[in-house]
Every structure is written in structure tokens, then in C-alpha cells.
């Protein structure tokens, strides 16, 4: 177990190193630099050079890469070029929007999707299953930003139940904060819930055809009970992967939804920082997102081991 853990940590580490190189290199070749962006069209050449120097952009590329990586290792993500405030603080503040939004959306989609998927699998072939699957197909096909626009149109502009965008902040109470995250979370959750419901259904159908389900029935369990006590837990294994993937997707994939609803989250930060060529922020946020993907995969793998005794022993 320890060794498995250790090996996974090493792969995780190498993935991150490669990711950091890819991120750094690709951002280096993006045209435009933060100094000229900040100084605008009336700035003189020497002013731009002076600002570059002040920002540390005059150092050789390799040195800057090392500084960045070294900094990250000790938890120092550097200082934003444009905002001149520590990246870690900026990211931290945005996380308070992105993370709750991702969790909110994930909870929404899981709570809706799993029962629906189980229900459809239990009634497979019937008209109910057919219509549920039809709805999930539509859910997958709807671009979430368009769905978000329609939500805004309906609930903010016509009905005026929610505000069309912005984030109320957590200071004024959790309810207000959640309220401003509700429409975005719904927009994010719809396609995710559709995917999850489908995965849950097909996974459960696969399990239902397994021999041990027949064993369970032969023991005297009713279909429903066999489904609950033998089917669902086995079927949850592939679902777990999807949930894991979705979490990282929701963290990063919210980028467009954050723009539609004007939420000050990580996605907006990254968009804005790319536009402003605030490279150090972009680098750090992407790195953080990559890290979260890798970490979630890691956690999902560990969760597998906990759920599935076969894996537990194979890595002992």
C-alpha cells in the first residue's frame, strides 16, 4: 500500500513537472507583454523597459522558470504583474467563489443524476427509461453557456427572481451567497447531471447482467433489494471516475459560465490575466487547476482501492 501510494505520488510529481514546462513555454511564446499592456499607447519605450525591469521580466527565461517553480515548491506563487499583489492571495479569494460553485454544481448533479440513473436502469426498456434517456441526451447537447443565457433571460430579466450576475459575497450571509451561485450552478450541473445519469444507468445495467446478481436473486432477494444491496455499490465504481473528472471540469470548465454570470472566480481570473498578459497569474492558476485534476484522479484512485477489495490486495 505504502509503495503504491509512493509510486502514485512520484507519477503525480512528474506530471506536474511536465505540465509546468508546457505551461511556461506556451505562455512565453504568447505575443504581448504585461508592461506594454499596462502602460498603454502613450508610454515611451524607456518607460516600458523600466517597468519590465521592475517586474523582473528582463531576466533570462530559464531563470524565471526556475524562480517560478522554486517559489511554488515553497508555496510562493509570486506577485501579479498587473495587480502587484501576491498571486496566492488573489487565487485564494477566487477559490472562495469557484470552489463553492463547483461543489454546489457537483452536489446538484449528483443528487439528481444518481437516483435518475438508477431509476432508469431499474426500468430499462420501458417508456420511462426511454424518456429519461431522451432528456439526458438533450441535457448533454445543450451548450451550458446558452442554457445560462436562457436562465438569465427567464429568471433574471423576465421573472427577476435572481440577479443576472455578480456575486453577493459570503459576508452578507451564506444564503445570499448561495443565491447568487444558484443559476450558475444549475447551468453547470445540467450537462454534468445528464452525463452522470447515463453513466450510472449503463454501469448499473452492466452489473445487472452479472452472474452474482442472479446469485442474489436465487438467494431470495427481490429485484429491488438485489439492486440496492448488490447492484449499486458495484455500479458506483465507474461513476466515481466520472464524478472525479467532473469536479476538475467544474473547477476549470466554469470559465465561460463565470463570464456569463460575472462571477469573480478562477475562470474569470484566468481570462482576464491572459488578456492582461499577467503571465505569472495565468501560469499559477493553470498549474493549480492541473494540480487539482491530478490530485482528484489520485484521490479517485485511492477511493477505488477503498471501495474495491480486489484492488486493495493487488497493491499490498
Amino acid at each position, binding site marked *: 500500500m505504502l509503495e503504491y501510494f509512493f509510486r502514485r505520488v512520484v507519477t503525480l510529481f512528474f506530471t506536474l513537472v511536465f505540465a509546468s514546462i508546457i505551461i511556461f513555454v506556451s505562455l512565453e511564446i504568447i505575443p504581448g507583454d504585461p508592461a506594454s499592456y499596462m502602460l498603454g499607447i502613450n508610454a515611451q519605450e524607456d518607460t516600458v523597459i523600466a517597468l519590465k525591469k521592475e517586474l523582473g521580466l528582463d531576466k533570462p527565461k530559464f531563470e524565471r522558470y526556475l524562480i517560478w517553480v522554486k517559489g511554488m515548491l515553497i508555496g510562493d506563487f509570486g506577485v501579479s504583474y498587473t495587480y502587484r499583489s501576491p498571486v496566492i492571495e488573489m487565487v485564494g479569494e477566487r477559490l472562495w467563489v469557484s470552489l463553492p460553485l463547483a461543489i454546489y454544481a457537483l452536489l446538484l448533479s449528483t443528487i439528481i443524476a444518481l437516483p435518475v440513473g438508477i431509476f432508469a436502469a431499474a426500468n430499462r426498456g420501458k417508456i420511462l427509461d426511454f424518456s429519461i434517456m431522451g432528456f439526458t441526451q438533450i441535457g448533454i447537447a445543450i451548450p451550458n453557456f446558452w442554457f445560462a443565457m436562457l436562465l438569465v433571460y427567464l429568471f433574471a430579466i423576465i421573472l427577476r427572481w435572481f440577479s443576472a450576475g455578480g456575486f453577493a459575497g459570503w459576508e452578507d450571509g451564506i444564503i445570499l451567497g448561495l443565491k447568487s451561485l444558484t443559476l450558475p450552478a444549475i447551468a453547470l450541473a445540467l450537462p454534468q447531471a445528464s452525463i452522470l445519469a447515463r453513466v450510472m444507468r449503463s454501469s448499473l445495467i452492466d452489473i445487472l447482467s*452479472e452472474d452474482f446478481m442472479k*446469485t442474489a436473486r436465487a*438467494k431470495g432477494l427481490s429485484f429491488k433489494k438485489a439492486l440496492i444491496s448488490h447492484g449499486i455499490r458495484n455500479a458506483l465504481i465507474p461513476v466515481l471516475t466520472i464524478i472525479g473528472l467532473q469536479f476538475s471540469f467544474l473547477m476549470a470548465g466554469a470559465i465561460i459560465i463565470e463570464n456569463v454570470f460575472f462571477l469573480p472566480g478562477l475562470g474569470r481570473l484566468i481570462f482576464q490575466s491572459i488578456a492582461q498578459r499577467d503571465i505569472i497569474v495565468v501560469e499559477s492558476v493553470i498549474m493549480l487547476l492541473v494540480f487539482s485534476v491530478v490530485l482528484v484522479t489520485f484521490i479517485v484512485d485511492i477511493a477505488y482501492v477503498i471501495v474495491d477489495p480486489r484492488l486493495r*490486495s493487488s497493491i499490498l
Partner: protein
Amino acid sequence: MNLIKVNNLNLSIHEKEILKGLSFEGKAGEILGIIGESGSGKSMTANSIIKLLPFGSSVTGEIILQNKNLLETSEEEMCTIRGRDIGFIFQEPMTALNPLKTIGEQVSEVIRIHKKINKFDALNSAATILDRVGLPQTDFPSTRYPFELSGGQRQRVVIAMAIAIKPKLIIADEPSTALDVTTQAKLIKLLKKLVIEDNICLIMITHDLSVIAEMADKIIIMRNGEIVERGKINILKNGLKNDYSKNLLKASNYKSKNLNKKISNQTLLKVDNISRHYSDNSFRFFGEKKVFKAVKNVSFSINYNENVGLVGESGCGKSTITRAILGLDPIINGKIILEGDEIKASNVSKNIRKKLQVVFQDPYGSFNPRHNVLKLISEPLYLEQSQISDYEKLNIVKELLERVGLNAEDHKKFIHEFSGGQRQRIAIARSLILKPKLIILDEAVSALDVSIRAQILDLLVELSESYGLSYLFISHDLSLVKSITSRVLVMKSGQIVESGNTKDIFNSPSHAYTKSLIASSPNLESSLRRLT
């Protein structure tokens, strides 16, 4: 008084008739053998009794268990009958258990479904039951997961679940087919013991006449959903009336025509002290790599015109040897020499390949489903240096098809249009096309029904005589080896433990393992002899 009585049972699934007018009955303490080849409807009979049938099934007739017609019983009530009154044992022990629950949980579940009993007590009685089926707590604590057990042990768990609340009727659907012979022998013993101790009626479903002959009191022979023969077990001894059942008995008791060929004393293939280890490729920080030694210093040779058998139970390293001889996997030491040329996995010349062909076990997986028979059979012609015209190819293939007992026009068909036996004939045709010196028959007849198996074996014997072929006949089934080889090698855990003349080994095995192998293989002949 009959425990179970089936009256005029008819089953159809999606309008297709599966079972036609079955009637039979069973008494407590009696073993009823239902025998039939694949597609005979024997499994569906079992499923009909517990009413776990596929979507779209419709059943008519009567199934009376202790004065209750199960076909008129509600699903709710059936739930209380399944497990309590009827125990069920499935064919596939590997998949019949829930991988995520311990064996103790799974056995105790049966008890908890049917009795008001707390979890702890249920687990305790489960332990007792597991002990009874030969899984004592000291060696197999009930906290084990299925994957920690061998196939035979898992099947014992399944049996434990079936007998947990002492049902009067147990249905066993091919309970030993997937197991090695030695394990199978032990399981049969266990089942017989349980029948006597608990006064059970056991319906034993199998395709293997020898298994039935050894344990059943009554027998039903099925074919295409109908009963063609029924009676006391002793009807097997000269009491069969139906032609089909007579044939079945004959095929099950297969003896080839005596091998009539002159074995050369020149060596064709020499396997010299080869070993092969498998290790997981992943990089490790701690400890040594786990190495699994599949084959350890194996040596043997095959002469021209000689059929050699290689026998061993699953996992003994038979297939590894096949792959090594075919040059598909590298060996770590030793040499394999065919007609003076060394076979090296890295580089097997076309010349060597031409002398060496193979027939595999699985008649379904051995062919590319997207190619027609012409293309399938002529694939080895790739090894011919000279170009062969399409016309020539076609003629060769047609000739071969007829030679293996198929129609010459079958060359246009695709593989899914053939039955298992026909496919195996095509595989043989493919292996013959280059007129090789040696054919490796890797469990080549194991997956076939007995009657077809006999035909294929006959064909193989005949071909080996007429083409002057050598066979390396690999099998887990001693009885098959016996009939078509002149020399046999017995393999266990990667090593050859005994080798010698086939007759000698069968008559006077010297190694303990060989002895147990021979003792546990169900022997129809001796079973029949015992019958009165």
C-alpha cells in the same frame, strides 16, 4: 412422494420455443441428472424452476414443489421460496459472487433474508456452513473476499449459500465444468455427501456424462428442448433406446481408432531446458519485483510423425510453452530447435514458421470475424515465398475444406455462419495449408460438445496419419490425450513431473500428481462398470 414434479413444461422466449413439454420428478435424497449438449435447454429448465427467466419469456405447464405450483406463485412469494426451499449453484464460480462483499457476508445474507436473526448470529452460522463445505475458519476466515479464493473454493462458497438454510431442493447448473479435474472430483464428493446428510433432492445439470454416471440416481437426456431419454442411471448400461443418446454415450466414451503410424526416431522438435518468467513491468521502489516463474527448466522432444500429449491443470504453464515454441514470447534460457534451426522470439524465419502451425481452443476467437473463410484459411500462405495466384489459392482452400469435412463452397462464408465444430475444422484446415511438420493443438477440442469432439478427434487422427504430421496435443483432460497420443508429458507448476509412453503412464503412474490426476478424472468406463 415426489419433492418436485414438473409437468408438461413449455417455455418460449420472444415467441421462440425453448422447452417443449418437459415432465420429470425428483425425490428427497435423490440425484437427478439432466444431461444435454449446448443448446439443449437444460439451463433454461433450471431457470424455469426458480422462475428467473429473461425478459419476454412465457411458461406454461406445472412445476409443483411440495404441493405448490410455482408457476402460479407470486413473485413476492417466490422470493421467500428461492434460497429457502430451492438452493441454486451456478456454473461460473469466478463471477457468481459479489466481488465487493466478504464470503461471510454473502453466506449470512441468505440466512438473514429468510430468518429473523441478527447480523452477528448470521455471520456465526455462515461460518459453520462454510466449515461444512470445506472452508474451515482457520484457513478461510469469513472476512475473505471472493478474489482471495481459487475457483474451487469459490464454488464451495456458492454451495454454502445454496445449502445455508437446508433447502429440500438444490439445482446445480454445471457446477464443476469450469474447474480442474482434481477440484471437480472433490466437489462431486462434497455434493454427494450433502445430499445424503441433508436428504436433499439434487438436480444436477451437466454436459458431461461421466460426471452424471458417477453420481446420479436418475437421468434425463435432453436435446433441442425435449427429453429424449429418461430412466434409472443403469439405463446407461445397455438400456438406451434413442439413437442420439446412444451416440452421446459412445462419444463420451471416445476411443480413437488405434494410431497406426510409424514413429520416426529422428527428432523434429527439441525443447532444451527452457524457462520463462513473468514479472510486472512497473518500476518499484521497495522490495524485489514480483516474479512469477511460469515455466522452469522444461526439456522434451518430439520426433517426426509422433503425437505427444502435454497434460496439466490450468496455470501449469502449458500455454507458455505453446507461445515459446511458436516464437511469440521470448524465453530466458534454454533453446528450442526445430529441424536444426533455433526458434528465437525476436526473429522467426518464414522457413521455420512454415513447418509449425497451431490450432487454438476457442473456436470463436480464433478467426477474424470480418474475413471470409477463403481469406482465413489462406492466411498462412503469406509465408510462401513465391506468389500464389488467387485461382490457385481458391483451389487449395476448396480442397482443404473438403478434406476436413466441409463443403468446398463454404469458402465464401463468414465465420459466424458456422457452428463450433465446423469452426474447429476450419482452424484445422488453416493449420494444414502449408503442410507443416508439427501442429500444436492447444486445447483444440476442449470447448466442443462431446459428440462433435469425437468427430474432430477422429479427423485429427486420420490427418496425422495421412499427412505424416506430428502433434503436440495440449490438454487439461487426460482422457483426450489418452486416445490420440503415443507419449505424454505431465506438467505441474511449470515443470514436467512425469513423462513416458501414454499407456504406461495411464496404467502405472509413478508421480503422485499423475496418480491424483488419473484418480480424479471421471471415468465413464469404470462408472458404467459399477452400475448394476
